[in-house]
């Protein structure tokens, strides 16, 4: 609540305050509505359905949770996946998202609103993006005032990078995690600004929620220590910093260890060590400040030399122990994904399974423009604005943006972490620019009517114009204005900037007045920039990021054409195969098969067992007989392949096939990538290698393909295939979807291998007894 409890100085300003509060509450509400509704394009254009791959798993877990309750959920051993290994779901998922949606579903049903679990799951992400934009408002308000907060919230409500992960139906961890991330940062800054232990406790709780929600919590537990260290190094240590940090580490680590998937990792893995190190440092610093307070300067000097010499020895021992511990584990205690963050080439060198996922690739420049658009240009201005004046809070957001820019450059998925930072920075930049320009306009208009003092009163920011002599010089643009204000505002003011500024302070400030025309033009340009951003965001939400990817559409002359092949075949599997049949496919389709077809799969998108995936990869790259043996040993009854050659769907299994070969070859050396390549080129036409043309994936994809058009022209690879007429000996086609996108094959039953022996037996029995029972069962 922003209303002040002390009696306001004047009734008119009180009215204005109240009006401002109501207005910003209204704007925030509208921002929330905007954030929610811009994500509904997917429901309007397509349908209310879960998207992509991982959300299907989350949906399935939520269904289980809502059906069986929380205790069953923690103990859930899922035997429908990773056959025959199974998977302990309760201990290997981040439960935040499913618990959130499950709670919402439960609460709605408790007041007799009969929404299905699916509906709740579909709309969780849009609801939480509204929360996230409100959290952004709070965070930015702590940094630079409510004007900047509103601008940042509005920008975040529609930033394409976040939309891509939170459209209705995109039921993924990131949807709630971004809210948790921003809210944790807000509470950290709030604690830092107020020094209140209440907020520090809340901060630990939201950190706990973040740990529950997403593996990206390590970003928080590394960023906050870095900021604390930065504050200490720059001499900004204060008791508030201690309160903001120490409870977070202690409580946060204890709470994080409660989450089964994290457990003792919260104290054992290297990702968390930075926080403990800084925890020690901040105590040392606090002790030093305390001692400094009670000792005379001379005594203090002596104490320092004593402590430093002893401390160094202790530190060396501790560091040595730590290094030894870390070095003893094979990856140095770092998980593969984290290592590829530090060394971008790590994954492609050592872990093909991480490198094979497109969202783990480094982004390209166009993807920056696509995902954060004009924010990329506003961010530098925002950083400059943060230095004028530099407070603890603004230094934190500067650190946040620097770190997130680095991480987004490593992995395209982490663009999502950059987006809030970019929005905050751009919000600050926009708000400051608007302040300068509107203040200039107001001042220029006021000067023309000779009411200088009024103009001063009316400005609610610290950029009040005073001196008109400098106005002629400062017409270069906003950057110049920012630098000036940063120079003069070096005072360490920690108060949120939106507090009504004191007149005396204004008087000291040098003026930042621009000519009237320049201000108006600049304002119009800024509005245009904003308009471009809005247009781009709406376009991105409507066109680029709303496709659910399980339904494809194409616009042809005679209207919209829908390709619903995935669900067609999942529905077929679910209704026309036995409930315990095992279905083998490449791991991409594992989650969808278990969720939509309710059949046991061999591997799925939770790529926890490389050998198992390599086995499936090997089977797909082997000739038919060997593949049949591998699949039969895994008890597989059906093999599912995705084939886009008929309609030109590019992300099909033939295009993913080299990864199967690589991952398979990584474990089973008889599969060699070179055997599938002709002169280093991957091809399936007549130039392809015989290994390629005889492997199972090729055969299952192109079986009887030649009969469709007579030439077997593959529309994805844009070539005629190499081997057109062939028969399957160990597999039989049981289902092919309408556009041939999914083809399901059944393993043929084992032939009677001992025909000769059976004959002998028959002869033996027929000599003694009647031959009829022997015919039915040769083993009698």
């Amino acid at each position, binding site marked *: 609540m922003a209303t002040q409890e002390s009696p306001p100085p004047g009734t008119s300003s009180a009215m204005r305050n109240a009006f401002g509060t109501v207005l910003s509450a209204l704007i925030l509400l509208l921002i929330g509505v905007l954030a929610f509704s811009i994500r509904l394009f997917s429901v309007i254009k397509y349908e209310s359905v879960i998207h992509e791959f991982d959300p299907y798993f989350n949906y399935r877990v939520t269904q289980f949770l809502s059906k069986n309750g929380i205790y069953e959920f923690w103990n859930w051993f899922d035997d429908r996946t990773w056959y025959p290994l199974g998977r302990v779901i309760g201990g290997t998922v981040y439960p935040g998202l499913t618990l959130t949606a499950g709670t919402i579903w439960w609460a709605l049903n408790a007041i007799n609103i009969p929404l299905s679990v699916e509906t709740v799951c579909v709309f969780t992400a849009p609801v939480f993006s509204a929360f996230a934009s409100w959290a952004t408002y709070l965070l930015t308000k702590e940094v630079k005032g409510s004007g900047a907060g509103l601008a940042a919230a509005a920008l975040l409500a529609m930033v394409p990078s976040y939309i891509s992960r939170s459209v209705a139906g995109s039921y993924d961890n990131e949807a709630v995690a971004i809210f948790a991330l921003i809210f944790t940062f807000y509470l950290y800054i709030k604690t830092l600004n107020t020094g209140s232990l209440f907020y520090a406790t809340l901060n630990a709780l939201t950190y706990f929620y973040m740990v529950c929600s997403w593996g990206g919590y390590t970003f928080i537990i590394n960023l906050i220590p870095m900021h604390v260290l930065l504050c200490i190094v720059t001499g900004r240590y204060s008791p508030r910093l201690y309160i903001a940090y120490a409870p977070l580490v202690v409580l946060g680590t204890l709470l994080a260890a409660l989450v089964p998937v994290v457990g003792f990792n919260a104290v054992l893995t290297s990702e968390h060590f930075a926080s403990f190190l800084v925890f020690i440092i901040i105590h040392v610093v606090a002790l030093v400040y305390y001692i400094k307070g009670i000792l005379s300067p001379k005594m203090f000097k002596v104490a320092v030399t004593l402590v430093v010499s002893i401390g160094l020895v202790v530190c060396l021992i501790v560091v040595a122990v730590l290094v030894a511990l870390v070095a003893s584990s094979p990856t140095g205690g770092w998980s593969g994904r984290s290592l590829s963050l530090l060394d971008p080439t790590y994954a492609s060198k050592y872990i093909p399974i991480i490198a094979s996922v497109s969202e783990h690739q480094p982004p390209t420049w166009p993807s920056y423009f696509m995902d954060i658009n004009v924010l990329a240009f506003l961010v530098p201005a925002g950083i400059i604005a943060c230095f004028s004046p530099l407070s603890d809070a603004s230094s934190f957001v500067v650190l946040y943006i620097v770190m997130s820019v680095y991480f987004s450059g490593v992995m395209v998925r982490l663009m999502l972490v950059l987006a809030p930072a970019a929005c905050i920075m751009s919000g600050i930049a926009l708000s400051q620019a608007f302040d300068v320009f509107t203040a200039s306009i107001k001042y220029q208009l006021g000067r023309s009517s000779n009411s200088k003092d009024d103009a001063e009163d009316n400005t609610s920011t610290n950029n009040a114009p005073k001196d008109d002599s400098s106005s002629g010089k400062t017409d270069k643009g906003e950057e110049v204005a920012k630098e000036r204000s940063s120079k003069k505002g070096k005072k360490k003011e920690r108060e949120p900037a939106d507090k009504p500024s004191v007149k005396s302070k204004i008087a000291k400030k040098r003026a930042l007045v621009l000519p009237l025309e320049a201000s108006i033009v600049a304002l119009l340009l800024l509005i245009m920039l904003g308009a471009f951003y809005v247009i781009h965001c709406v376009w991105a939400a409507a066109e680029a990021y709303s496709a659910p990817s399980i339904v494809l559409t194409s616009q042809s002359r005679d209207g919209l054409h829908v390709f619903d092949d995935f669900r067609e075949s999942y529905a077929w599997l679910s209704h026309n195969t036995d409930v315990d049949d095992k279905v083998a496919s490449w791991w991409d389709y594992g989650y969808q098969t278990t969720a939509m077809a309710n059949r046991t799969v061999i591997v799925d998108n939770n790529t926890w067992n490389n050998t198992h995936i390599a086995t499936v990869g090997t089977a797909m790259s082997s000739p038919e007989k060997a593949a049949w043996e591998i699949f039969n040993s895994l008890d597989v009854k059906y093999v599912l392949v995705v084939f886009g050659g008929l309609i030109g769907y590019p992300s099909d299994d033939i295009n993913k096939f080299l990864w199967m070969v690589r991952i398979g070859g990584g474990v089973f050396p008889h599969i060699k990538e070179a055997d599938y390549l002709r002169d280093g080129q991957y091809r399936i036409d007549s130039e392809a290698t015989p290994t390629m043309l005889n492997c199972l994936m090729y055969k299952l994809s192109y079986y009887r393909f030649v009969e469709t058009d007579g030439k077997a022209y593959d529309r994805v690879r844009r070539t005629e295939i190499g081997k057109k007429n062939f028969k399957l000996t160990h597999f039989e086609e049981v289902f*092919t979807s309408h556009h041939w996108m999914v083809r399901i094959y059944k393993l043929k039953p084992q032939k009677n291998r001992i025909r000769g022996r059976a004959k002998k037996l028959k002869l033996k029995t027929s000599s003694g007894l009647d031959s009829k029972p022997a015919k039915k069962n040769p083993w009698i």
Partner: protein
Amino acid sequence: MAARIWIFAVVVVLAISLSLPSSSASPQDLQIVNAERRIDLSSHIVKAFLTLKVENIGKDPALDMLLAFPPTQIKHLAMVQALAITGKKKKKTYLPLDVKPTEQPDAPNDTGYFLVTFATPLTPGETVTLEVLYILTHSLEPFPSEITQAEAQLVYYRDSAVILSPYHIKQQTSFFKTPSTRVESFTSVDPANRAGKEIKYGPYEDRAPYSYAPVIVHFENNSPFAVVEELVREIEISHWGSLQITENYKLTHGGARHKGVFSRVDYQSRRSISGSSSFNALLAVLPPRVNSVYYRDDIGNISTSHLRPGFKKSELEFEPRYPLFGGWRATFIIGYRVPLEDYLFESPDGRRYLNFTFGCPLVETIVNKLTLKVVLPEGSKDPSAVLPFTVNQDLQVKYSYLDIVGRTVVVLQKDNVVPTHNVPFQVYYTFKPIYMLAEPFMLVSAFFFVFVASLAYVHIDLNIAKK
């Protein structure tokens, strides 16, 4: 409450079935002068039209007569209807007669009986002409029972060449109409012959009561064997102006089981010979003025459907996700909304009643188990359903949007339903319109309290120490 109604229904049925046979005329009193039977085998619903000319040869007036069915048919019998024809050719009038299942103490070989009550008692020497329609489901047995994609579906139909009857039949003929000219074989009972799509048995003269001559007809039938294993229709009445209908289907292909390979290339390029017994298009006849129609299943919307609205009826053409071959299953949900004023009326005694169609909207479909739930608005009382045939009735309570006491649900359940069951039924209940305002009032007061609470929070100083 629900149990009591059910028990009452059982008692009534028992009373009827026990009391009526005593009044029926003994088999010696009636004889059938002429009988003609036409059995339509062109779809998987077997329809038999029986024209009987009945004469009273006894001394007492006859109130009713018996129809007999062999035990193999009695369990597949979906419905029996009888009409009395009066008047000559041009001025024929049809009078529906009361038909009830009944038991006979001396029934040979578990024969099942239906009792037809004449409109006016048949005086000695008088004759009456009856039209009887009976419908059999699941009576075509696929043989071979498993076929591949390229084969056509052949089925057996078993019946008797002569009509099973407790009465003496002087002259009778039976016609079996097959869907195509391809008839593999049929049992010959002289005189029997086949011409085109029709097999004629008879005429047979002077057959004694309970004569039986089993015949098997083996013929091709590629009509869609669409069987809904279970259909749950939920009709939700909202007095705010609409009727929301949700229908849950469990569809299966009831014909010969599909064997081995399903090849899409054969199915797409050689449609005429490949998968001729499969079906992938269905037609549902929905009420006129239907709106907000959706067609989906557990995993989302199904995009292959087309609605043709009309003044007398709307037609929804739709395809399951994949073509259905023998033994394949599919589930889906159809939902739609119709305006309330077309179906909800007020009866003279002040009660309201819903007048809606029973049965399944899909054409040419058998429903093995139909559950129809009528969800009455919250606060309605004394529900009662009126149907032209017997169904299991039950009452449930359902909680929907912000309900407190819950909504009364009238559950009507019937097995073996065919399109002929699509007749209107009524559900009567009393309802006070004031209940309509309960939920808006709850919402308004909830918001009011939120604002009051926030007002109080802002204005009350909860600090212990003065600042």
